[in-house]
């Protein structure tokens, strides 16, 4: 478990080249290298806009005391999930905004808040290249995707003539909550097992 990302990244590239060579997809692979870099840059350009817009709005929300107000509402949850950080800290403020944006299905706003939260959390992290328990918990919650109304999914269902495009939502909520609970519990248990650092 030493500096995993170095190995994962190299492994992804090597296995791709190997698979493409054995399945005769070298041309597609070649193209994907170019298009991947292009895709990354267009993501970064759209992120530049969103990150500075939401960074600016976030600063206003902080100065106006709005994020403080939200952090107080979320305080019990925050204390349980992110015990390393004070409820009034900038990290907790960004976490609150990220959770709200995710819940409302605003992926474009959630990502900048999430990156801000990770940066704030890493400021007081002892080992900068290894996640602490709170940071791991934060990523797990973000990957679990608890969302009030999954607009896009319902639109796609309607496009294909579903009898009830929104009918799937109760089942979705049950599933999301179950997955979130399992994810959080797993993280809480595993954080005691994975103590090794880079």
């Amino acid at each position, binding site marked *: 478990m030493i500096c995993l990302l170095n190995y994962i990244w190299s492994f992804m*590239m090597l296995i*791709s080249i190997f698979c493409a060579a054995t399945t005769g997809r070298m041309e597609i*692979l070649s193209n994907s290298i170019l298009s991947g870099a292009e895709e990354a840059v267009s993501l970064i350009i759209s992120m530049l806009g969103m990150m500075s817009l939401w960074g600016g709005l976030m600063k206003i929300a902080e100065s106006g005391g709005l994020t403080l107000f939200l952090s107080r509402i979320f305080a019990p949850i925050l204390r349980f999930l992110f015990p390393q950080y004070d409820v009034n800290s900038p990290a907790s403020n960004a976490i609150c905004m990220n959770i709200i944006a995710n819940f409302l299905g605003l992926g474009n706003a959630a990502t900048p808040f999430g*990156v801000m939260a990770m940066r704030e959390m890493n400021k007081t992290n002892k080992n900068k290249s290894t*996640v602490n328990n709170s940071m*791991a918990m934060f990523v797990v919650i973000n990957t679990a*995707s608890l969302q009030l109304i999954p607009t896009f999914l319902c639109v796609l*269902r309607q496009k294909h003539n579903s009898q009830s495009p929104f009918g799937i939502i109760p089942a979705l909520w049950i599933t999301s909550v179950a997955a979130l609970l399992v994810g959080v519990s797993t993280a809480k248990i595993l954080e005691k*097992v994975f103590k090794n650092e880079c």
Partner: protein
Amino acid sequence: MNANIGVWAIPIIIFIIIISGLLKDVPLFDVFIKGAKEGLESTLLIAPSLIGLIVAVSMLKASGALDIFTSFISPLANKIGLPPEIVPLAILRPISGSGSIALLDNLFRVYGPDSQVGKIASIIMGATETTFYTAAVYLGSIGIKNSRHTIASALTADFTTIIVAIVIVKFLNVYAF
């Protein structure tokens, strides 16, 4: 059907933020500029790791490695009751957002969104995220090299989604409205 909630949400959030600043007499635009500058700087800082990671993911998708992986996983998927048609979606979902949307669209076209396959696919799509991508952006953005138990926990949650989706659709048939 209208999807107005999404259209209203962002303007309303901006409205509330501006009002909260006005009430406290914050120099709104000055503060905005300061925060926006920090946002720009942090995006540029994470650019190199994003480029590296996204190219690797894009190579993995193009190489056919996922198809090979799917054929390995299929027997296991049958054991937990996951219809074989959904296996590619379940595997691609944590890796690629646009790729999994394309697969879902195809499943809806072939089986219909209200079929058993369509319902399980809907739940898997809606209740999980592009786990690897999200983790790569968040961890990569601040230069994390050791993510400890993060990926294992996130994938356990994704696996739970698949199991619960199968149980709900096959046995409980929760389908309200």
